[in-house]
């Protein structure tokens, strides 16, 4: 069964410093990996995804993520944090489509709250 883990409930970083939000996954076959951000009282906004190709994926708002197959990780990064980046971040994984027309759900982690201090 596929799963995703976000080991940190909260990450604190000072504005201007680099940030990393961690994510590890478990899936049979090649993974499809996603990051979403959720601001207070809002829905989920898509940030970036990894399907295939270059292990470093660039996304919205200056975020990027690095796919590491040997460590089964997909950590979210940003070189210089902004106070406006403070939000809840979700990592999600989807396995390849199984045979027989069955579905493969997008499975979310429990989320990591990013707090950027001015």
């Amino acid at each position, binding site marked *: 069964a596929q799963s995703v883990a976000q080991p940190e409930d909260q990450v604190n970083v000072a504005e201007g410093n680099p940030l990393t939000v961690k994510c590890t996954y478990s899936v049979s076959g090649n993974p*499809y990996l*996603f990051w*979403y951000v959720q601001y207070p*009282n*809002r*829905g*989920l*906004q*898509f940030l970036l*995804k990894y*399907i*295939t190709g270059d292990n470093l994926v660039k996304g919205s708002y200056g975020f990027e993520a690095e796919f590491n197959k040997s460590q089964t990780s997909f950590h979210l990064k940003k070189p210089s944090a902004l106070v406006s980046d403070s939000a809840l971040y*979700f990592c*999600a994984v*989807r*396995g*390849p*489509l199984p045979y027989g027309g069955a*579905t*493969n*759900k*997008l499975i*979310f*982690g*429990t*989320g990591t709250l990013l707090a950027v201090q001015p």
Partner: protein
Amino acid sequence: EAGVAQSPRYKIIEKRQSVAFWCNPISGHATLYWYQQILGQGPKLLIQFQNNGVVDDSQLPKDRFSAERLKGVDSTLKIQPAKLEDSAVYLCASSSVRGSAGNTIYFGEGSWLTVV
């Protein structure tokens, strides 16, 4: 391009009452999803539609939850009767093609339900 539209945004009901949420996906998106997000947890898929057919409803509590997408466009999620543990955000989402697992799923703003 308009995003996924949901209504109402907020709803407070008493337990044992009923509630319905509406969703209109991004134009042209054949796949529609309803997710439940309980406070402190990640979203959990309740039901997935492909056009007007149900693809996956394995995690939908069918004794109280129902959903339909009659014309393959907008969808309604109903809860009857509601329980306290149904307090959550109900997120509607859509994506363009079922066949690719790499397709991005786009979410609406959510419908926030409080059951008292």
